[in-house]
Each structure stands twice: as C-alpha cells, then as structure tokens.
C-alpha cells in the first residue's frame, strides 16, 4: 500500500547550519526514492533521487542517505540558505511512473 512518510512537519534551522530531513517508508519492496522541494505557490521540484542498491548519493549541497534495514531515508542540506526554505517531500516512484508522496516537512531558515 501507500507507504511513504516523514517524521517531522516542521524543521527550523539557522542560516549556514546543516539541515537533515527524514523520511520513513514501510514497503520493503520500494526501490526508488526521490526528494522534492515545493516552494510556496509552486509545484514540486526534483532535488535528488536514490535507488535501493545505493546507500548514499550526493548532489550540489544535498546528500540523500538510504538505510534499507530500518526503511529510512534522509535528505541532508549543507550550509542551509534562506532560499532553501520550502516544504520537502520524499516520494517513491512505482513501476508505472506514479509518485507516492510523503506528508512533507516545512524547512524554515532563520537569518
């Protein structure tokens, strides 16, 4: 069934600090995950993805970690900037291309 969720609805961090946003999933067969960023009034924007045969994937200032043992993934944002303020969703992509989104974490960056 639908299985993707996030731990915290809101995360507040100081500008320049690192942010960690968490997501738990329940379907052990899930094998592809994506993090999306949604700014106010906009649609979800792809940030980074990871397949289940990987533990870690890095992008520009972002890192996704996948722990299949506990069915948990996280998004780490280095040196968080005001422009990072948004709602972050993890999502699972199924065989047909549909995305199953988690609840979302609102990241607030304090100057």
């Amino acid at each position: 069934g639908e299985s993707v969720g996030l731990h915290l609805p809101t995360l507040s961090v100081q500008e320049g600090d690192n942010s960690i946003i968490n997501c738990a999933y329940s379907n052990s067969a899930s094998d592809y995950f994506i993090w999306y960023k949604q700014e106010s009034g906009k649609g979800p924007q792809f940030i980074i993805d990871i397949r289940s045969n990987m533990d870690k994937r890095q992008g520009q200032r972002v890192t996704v970690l996948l722990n299949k043992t506990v069915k948990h993934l996280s998004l780490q944002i280095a040196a968080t900037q005001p422009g990072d303020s948004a709602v972050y969703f993890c999502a699972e992509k199924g065989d047909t291309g549909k995305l199953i989104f988690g609840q979302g974490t609102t990241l607030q960056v304090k100057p």
Partner: protein
Amino acid sequence: EPEVTQTPSHQVTQMGQEVILRCVPISNHLYFYWYRQILGQKVEFLVSFYNNEISEKSEIFDDQFSVERPDGSNFTLKIRSTKLEDSAMYFCASSPSQTRNTEAFFGQGTRLTVV
C-alpha cells in the same frame, strides 16, 4: 528551459458545476500525470496517461473525473460535478519516460476552490 504550464492558476466554481483544468506538458514528453494537494496535506496521485489512454488511476479518480488529450499539446482534467472536497491544488506533470530514473516535471498548479 522547457516547462509544464497550467491554466488557470486559480479557479473558483460553485458546487455541482463542471470544471476543466488545462495543462500543456513539455513537448517531447510521452507520459502525463495529474496530482492533487489538499491544503496542508501531501501530494496525491490521481491518474497517469500514456498513448491516449489512462494507464493507472487512484481511488480518488472516480467517475466524476476524466482526462483527455484533445490535441497534440494539451492535457486536460475534467471534474463533472464538483464537490466542496474537490477544493485543492491540482498539479499536472509530464515525463519522457516512466522508468524510475526519469524525472517528472511539475507545473505550477491550479488552485481549485469549490464554494
């Protein structure tokens, strides 16, 4: 940079009325999707569309909903008789492929308010 465009940005309609939400996917994409997001909640899958037919639909996508690709560029979502609980943001997305490592691009959304 190519983008998915949606119109209108905001639609207010009376309960029981029909609405059509419009989307222009990215031109070389083949897979099209509608999602909705009730205020403060997660984004929910409604329907996927490929080769002029629905490939998958969710429980939300009941007989009141329909999708159409009337020409080579538009992709529409119709709600025949709107209910108050249909109030939400509706997002269109398109993708060149349905494979896992292919990004889906989202439009800015249409905010539907049913009064």
